[in-house]
């Protein structure tokens, strides 16, 4: 390639680089601080490459100017300077000026005084960033005419004085030839000539300090050492190959040019392979040659052995050694170390989690469901056979199945945090719409629950959060009047509580107005007047379909239709919803959900010939039905448990089961939320792993039944919907109390 052709390439390349520089500069303001480094690096590289290439062609004007620009960019890159909007526009001006300089070169025109002035002004403005005392830096922008002494701080500036080619764009090769080189038929000069075919030897400095007086001289020994400044596009291994025949008895040190450092760092970053050692990484990136690595490693081993003898087991890291030996620049080693740490991190993350198709997981859960049922079958057969070894095997099997089931279900567990975090945006948007200032606080984000539940809880939660912001949190003026901080607070919280997960939506707003709700309910005929309802039940009224207190409706949300849907959604997940509220102080809505939807530990009971399963989490204890209640028929719905009055219900009556009554009746005490109640059954059959099969469409609306399961014998058992039954009992008792009070 002739000089002219090369120059044309330089012009074309420069324009491309400048365009890239501009694009990157314009992208900067939109980037977050931590995402900028790559872009800044690209800008720096563009400036650096232009400077380096311009230097090759002896375009001093461009070199001088880009050098100052590069120095500022270097500070930005090193994090010593922040790139603000001013700096971006300054850099854009600089880019234009460089483009102008390149164009002038291209057209062969000389620098006009205008351009000169512009350049000086820009240099002055850039120099502001280079001086360590920013206060003194304000002035230079004005006095544009004498910029030259404005960058005395910069040691790099000296480089461009030495010659057209900057030292730091060249390979630095130092070589101390062994005494026998000449005798072995090698001539350093021919090696240099060979090097010359790979690039351009910019400078050779000969050292002859080992040279003795002529009388002492062995004319066949070599006493010379050289330092070469070598410009080449070849990689390190290729350059090293020039010394192939002499390297055994020579000390060779090849230090890559500074401009290569960025490339090496880049190469290290892009290394695809995992698990590389520092040395391997350096070799792969081309910084270190295999021979150098071997030598350093051998030295390290030797040192180690020496050290262990001298009771000092300090092993110096390879990176440190190669830097100290001057083979590799410290920046490159740093990049390699960084990469290594990243790899380790990535690896540990990989080990922590693995992505699995949700469908595969569902298949597994289904299979385990079947396994549980089959296991129950085996158990029954074992019991029937009465063989001890068979029973033992069966019980081991059951235990394992149980463990497998638990871990399989665990696979489906995900943290609720991600769902919670989505609400930051919801809160931000809704608050902005309503002109309120709201802070969202999230706690318990690491609480785990079933993936299906997480997916389905999003909508109801959104509704509740919107509600809190709209109706809960008061406008700023009212808050001020009530002595609350102007910024409202919505809190999302999650925690585990005996087989359930509790999700709370809390606000520090106005709370529910009990009287207003009650009045509305009476007006709507939902509650009969004169009955004293507990607070929690009054609040439950807001979940009734079409319920809304008039002055609370807005276009964002209305506690009418929406809350009704929320409740139904939650109930579809076998959950329930409670409200705690203090007028003027705030509201807490508490959603209680089962941890999983697929398999539960059940408690099997029998009424007549029918089997029922009660979720074991909800069973508190089992007692015999007290004598006085045995024949009390329909009149009484309460019995006394150690002095505590509990409502109870005969499943036989509720489900209209026919068939023989057992000899005695048992009561299973269940608890749901804060309510306890008794269920009267004929027989207690004990714990039973239950795979929940959803009810068919036809039976979906059945009250008191939550699902079905298949027993080991192949029979079907119905799973009781305890929340539904408990509520039914409470409602019934209220109804009767109120009817009783009306009669009176």
């Amino acid at each position: 390639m002739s000089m002219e052709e090369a120059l044309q390439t330089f012009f074309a390349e420069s324009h491309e680089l400048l365009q890239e520089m501009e694009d990157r500069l314009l992208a900067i303001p939109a980037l977050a601080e931590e995402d900028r480094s790559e872009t800044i690096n690209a800008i720096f590289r563009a400036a650096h490459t232009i400077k380096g290439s311009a230097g090759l062609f002896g375009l001093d004007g461009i070199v001088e100017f880009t050098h100052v620009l590069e120095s500022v960019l270097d500070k930005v890159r090193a994090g010593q300077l922040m790139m603000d909007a001013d700096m971006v526009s300054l850099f854009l001006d600089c880019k234009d000026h460089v483009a102008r300089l390149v164009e002038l070169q291209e057209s062969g025109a000389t620098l006009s005084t205008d351009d000169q002035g512009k350049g000086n002004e820009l240099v002055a403005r850039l120099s502001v960033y280079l001086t360590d005392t920013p206060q003194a830096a304000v002035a230079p922008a004005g006095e544009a005419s004498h910029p030259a002494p404005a960058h005395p701080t910069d040691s790099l500036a000296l480089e461009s004085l030495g010659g057209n080619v900057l030292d730091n764009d060249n390979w630095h090769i130092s070589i101390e030839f062994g005494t026998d080189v000449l005798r072995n038929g090698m001539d350093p000069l021919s090696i240099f000539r060979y090097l010359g075919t790979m690039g351009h030897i910019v400078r050779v400095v000969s050292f002859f300090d080992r040279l003795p007086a002529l009388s002492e001289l062995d004319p066949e020994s070599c006493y010379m050492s050289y330092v070469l400044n070598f410009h080449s596009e070849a990689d390190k291994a290729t350059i090293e190959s020039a010394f192939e025949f002499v390297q055994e008895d020579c000390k060779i040190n090849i230090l890559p040019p500074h401009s290569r450092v960025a490339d090496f760092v880049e190469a290290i970053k892009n290394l695809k392979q995992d698990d590389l050692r520092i040395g391997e990484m350096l070799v792969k990136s081309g910084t270190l040659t295999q021979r150098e690595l071997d030598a350093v490693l051998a030295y390290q081993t030797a040192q180690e052995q020496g050290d262990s003898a001298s009771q000092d087991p300090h092993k110096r890291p390879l990176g440190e050694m190669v830097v100290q030996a001057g083979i590799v620049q410290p920046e490159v080693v740093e990049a390699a170390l960084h990469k290594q740490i990243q790899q380790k991190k990535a690896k540990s993350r990989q080990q922590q989690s693995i992505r699995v198709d949700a469908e595969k997981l569902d298949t597994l859960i289904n299979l385990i469901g079947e396994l549980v049922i089959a296991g129950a079958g085996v158990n029954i057969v074992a019991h029937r056979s009465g063989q001890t070894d068979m029973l033992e095997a069966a019980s081991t099997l059951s235990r394992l199945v149980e463990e497998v089931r638990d871990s399989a279900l665990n696979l489906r567990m995900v943290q609720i945090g991600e769902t919670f975090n989505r609400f930051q945006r919801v809160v931000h948007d809704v608050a902005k719409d309503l002109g309120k200032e709201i802070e969202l606080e999230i706690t318990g984000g690491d609480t785990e629950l079933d993936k299906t539940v997480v997916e389905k809880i999003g909508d109801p939660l959104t509704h509740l959060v919107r509600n809190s912001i709209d109706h809960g949190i008061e406008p700023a003026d009212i808050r001020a009047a009530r002595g609350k901080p102007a910024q409202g607070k919505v809190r999302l919280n999650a925690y585990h509580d005996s087989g359930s997960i509790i999700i709370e939506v809390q606000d520090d707003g106005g709370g529910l107005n009990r009287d207003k709700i009650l009045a509305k309910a009476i007006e709507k005929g939902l509650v009969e007047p004169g009955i004293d309802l507990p607070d929690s039940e009054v609040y439950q009224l807001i979940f009734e379909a079409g319920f809304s207190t008039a002055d609370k409706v807005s276009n964002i949300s209305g506690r009418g239709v929406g809350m009704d849907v929320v409740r139904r959604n939650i109930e579809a997940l076998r959950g329930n919803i409670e409200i705690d509220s203090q007028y003027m102080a705030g509201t807490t809505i508490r959603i209680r959900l089962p941890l999983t939807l697929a398999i539960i530990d059940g408690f099997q009971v029998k009424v007549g010939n029918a089997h029922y399963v009660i979720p074991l989490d909800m069973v508190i204890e089992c007692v015999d039905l007290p004598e006085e209640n045995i024949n009390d028929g329909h009149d009484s719905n309460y019995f006394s448990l150690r002095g505590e009055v509990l409502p109870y219900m005969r499943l036989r009556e509720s489900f209209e089961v026919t068939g023989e009554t057992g000899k005695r009746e048992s009561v299973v005490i269940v608890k749901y939320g804060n309510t306890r109640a008794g269920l009267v059954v004929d027989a207690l059959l004990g714990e039973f792993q239950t795979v929940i099969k959803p009810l068919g469409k036809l039976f979906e609306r059945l009250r008191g039944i939550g699902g079905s399961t298949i027993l080991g014998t192949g029979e079907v058992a119905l799973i009781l919907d305890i929340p539904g039954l408990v509520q039914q009992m409470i409602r019934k008792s209220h109804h009767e109390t109120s009817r009783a009070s009306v009669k009176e």
Partner: protein
Amino acid sequence: MTHGIPEAGPLQLSGEVNIFTAAAIREQLLARLETSPRLEIDLAEVSEIDTAGLQLLLAAKLTCQSKGGDLTLVHHSAPVLDVMDLCNLTHVFGDPVVISSN
């Protein structure tokens, strides 16, 4: 030519000044140095020079200087200039040379 020219006249080197001839040339140089620390070497006929030759000349120069004299090289042939240029040694010898165009 006004001063420093040894009585014996310049030492003429010709042909190869390399590892093969270095020993012999060294003897010649040493012999010359016996008489005077001032030495002039005419390189016009040197057809080839290598590192061995180069360091020989260097050593001679240093030795002359250490004895208060100097070594002057004249009429550098093209191969000599080429090598001195390559190794950047011209200024070390400090002799006036015709600077090559490349």
